[in-house]
């Protein structure tokens, strides 16, 4: 789960990570008031959307007067900000973060991730701040410092000093960086984060270190014990169809093809998409109905897949372990009867209660195209699409 920059900064401030003075604003007057109360002569106005690359998209601007704060806020709020991460449609800006501007002497990168190699929380730091860290890691891997954290003892001070020294910090900054890193780690650990990124970590005016930009994402599986984080969720930043699917216990991701897919299990769902692609078809979505797929769940899956106007055919591929093919069949029949399904449906059933499920579909008199296995299913999808001239 992702949150906005202003929320991340408030959270980090609470843990003792130095961040610029600033507040969120929802309209022009609000932004001017915030700037006035903050004081100073220059402010940074930052569009608050979840996607990265906002600077490149024109979503981060410096204002030298309160009028300018108003102008920039007026431009940003209500506009669709397009960044390298939003896609061509962009994302609607509904609020801005107004901060006191600082003079930057030097920029560093500081991040925490759960590293799959070491299977531990790992600090990543670099003297090349303000840049894409993956690019830095690719071109100059020696400039990226990695330090895994032993969960038994946490991030130790000596480790922080080592990291700070390795990215070129000196004197008092080493102690300041140590404090900052440990605060960030505590926040990461307490709040079940999956990723935290301070980019840039800047050396400002008098040599002080400050998190100029901050991004965090949190473990959706841990939200039950994170009431404060759960409240920060912004559904406007998520695909409404994906939110609806999650509400029904389905895992749905929209893609740009025309073959709708309804599958159980993430691995098989991906493999089904792959099999379609192997036959030169294009999947319209990833959809995992999960374990224990009730007839209602199957009906909801159909509704969500069919809401995509590009879908010309649906492939249902179920390999029931914890699921039961007869439940799936019941859901299929009901969906066909209740919903206006104007596209052909190819069905492949296997596993628990497969005979019963297949019999139910045959006895229904409805027009299902039955497939024996994955290859047969993909072949029949493409043949049927071919007949339609799609």
């Amino acid at each position: 789960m992702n949150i906005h920059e202003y929320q991340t900064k408030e959270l980090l401030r609470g843990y003792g990570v130095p961040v610029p003075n600033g507040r969120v604003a929802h309209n022009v007057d609000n932004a001017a008031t915030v700037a006035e109360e903050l004081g100073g002569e220059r402010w940074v106005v930052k569009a608050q959307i979840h996607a990265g690359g906002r600077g490149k998209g024109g979503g981060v601007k410096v204002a030298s007067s309160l009028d300018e704060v108003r102008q920039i806020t007026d431009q940003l709020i209500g506009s669709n900000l397009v960044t390298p991460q939003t896609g061509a449609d962009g994302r609607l800006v509904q609020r801005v973060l107004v901060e006191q501007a600082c003079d930057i002497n030097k920029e560093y990168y500081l991040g925490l991730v759960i590293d799959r190699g070491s299977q531990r929380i790992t600090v990543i730091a670099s003297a090349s701040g303000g840049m894409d860290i993956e690019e830095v890691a690719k071109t100059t891997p020696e400039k990226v410092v990695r330090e895994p954290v032993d969960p038994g003892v946490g991030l130790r001070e000596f480790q922080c000093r080592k990291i700070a020294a390795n990215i070129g910090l000196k004197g008092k900054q080493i102690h300041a960086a140590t404090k900052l890193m440990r605060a960030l780690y505590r926040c990461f650990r307490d709040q079940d984060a999956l990723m935290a990124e301070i980019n840039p970590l800047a050396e400002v005016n008098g040599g002080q270190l400050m998190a100029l930009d901050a991004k965090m994402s949190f473990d959706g599986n841990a939200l039950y014990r994170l009431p404060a984080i759960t409240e920060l969720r912004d559904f406007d930043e998520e695909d409404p169809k994906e939110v609806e699917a999650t509400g029904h216990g389905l895992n749905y991701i929209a893609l740009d093809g025309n073959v709708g897919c309804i599958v159980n299990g993430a691995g098989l769902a991906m493999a089904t998409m792959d099999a379609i692609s192997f036959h030169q078809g294009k999947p319209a979505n990833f959809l995992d109905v999960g374990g224990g797929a009730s007839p209602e769940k199957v009906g909801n899956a159909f509704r969500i897949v069919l809401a995509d106007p590009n879908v010309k055919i649906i492939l249902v591929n179920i390999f029931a372990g914890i699921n039961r093919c007869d439940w799936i069949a019941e859901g299929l029949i009901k969906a066909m009867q209740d919903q206006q399904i104007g596209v052909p449906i190819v069905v492949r059933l296997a596993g628990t209660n497969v005979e019963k499920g297949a019999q139910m579909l045959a006895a229904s008199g409805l027009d299902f195209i039955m497939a024996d296995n994955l290859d047969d299913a993909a072949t029949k999808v493409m043949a049927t699409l071919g007949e339609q001239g799609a």
Partner: protein
Amino acid sequence: MSVFVHKHSRVIIQGFTGQHATFHAEESMANGTNVVGGVTPGKGGQIHLERPVFDTVSQAVEETGADVSGIFVPPPFAADAIMEALEAGIGVVVVIADGIPVQDMVRVKRYASDRNAIIIGPNTPGIITPAACKVGIMPSHIYQPGRIGVVSRSGTLNYEAVQQMSALGMGQSTSVGIGGDPVNGTDFVTVLRAFEEDPETDAVIMIGEIGGPQEVDAARWARENMSKPVVGFVAGISAPPGRRMGHAGAIISGESDTANAKMDLMEELGVHVVRNPALIGETAHRVFS
């Protein structure tokens, strides 16, 4: 001998009296698994499925000599249950739960690091040595005894591969689901090593997914250390970067962990790669015979 579980394994179920646990324990017992008891805190002393229920894992181990545990407790309680099993000296811990917080697993792995145990999962259908021992939720009837080891991150894709194998008359020595989470108990290398050392396994099918380095790490290990042939597939050729595909671990985070990039590297390292998931069985049949 098969790997990790066999017909002499003495299995307990944690969360024994729950609905899913009961269903799958019964199914396992009907297929020859030696379930010797179970644990449900607060229900110690009861009898369930004609087996004793204990309050703690250490009591269960003491009374029954259990050496394998299937953990069927809900995700928020799973980390604790795994550590309890490890502390009681269980050698093979199978974790079915899907949705354990990642940092819980980071702590579990630290706790497990100086204990000589195998953790299978989480987010796995489990492990099965056909006709001998099943700890998990997979449909037993698609598996048949044989000499091919299967290891996969995905559950249902494991079933898919097994059915393709069975249709061609190839049975399994053991099938292991290592699970779809980014931090998991056992990696591919550990399972490959066990298959290499197992005299009853002749060859291995390894099924991976987008995200992370472990399939390539395993292929690298296999080139140096394995005499048995490996057929490999990585799901998610058509997955877009940056989108998590269901499993917490299945997300493309760089150029090197796309399905095709991984399969190219695996091929270079000597794995017999199959690019069409519908042909896993056929490819294995051709390579292994």
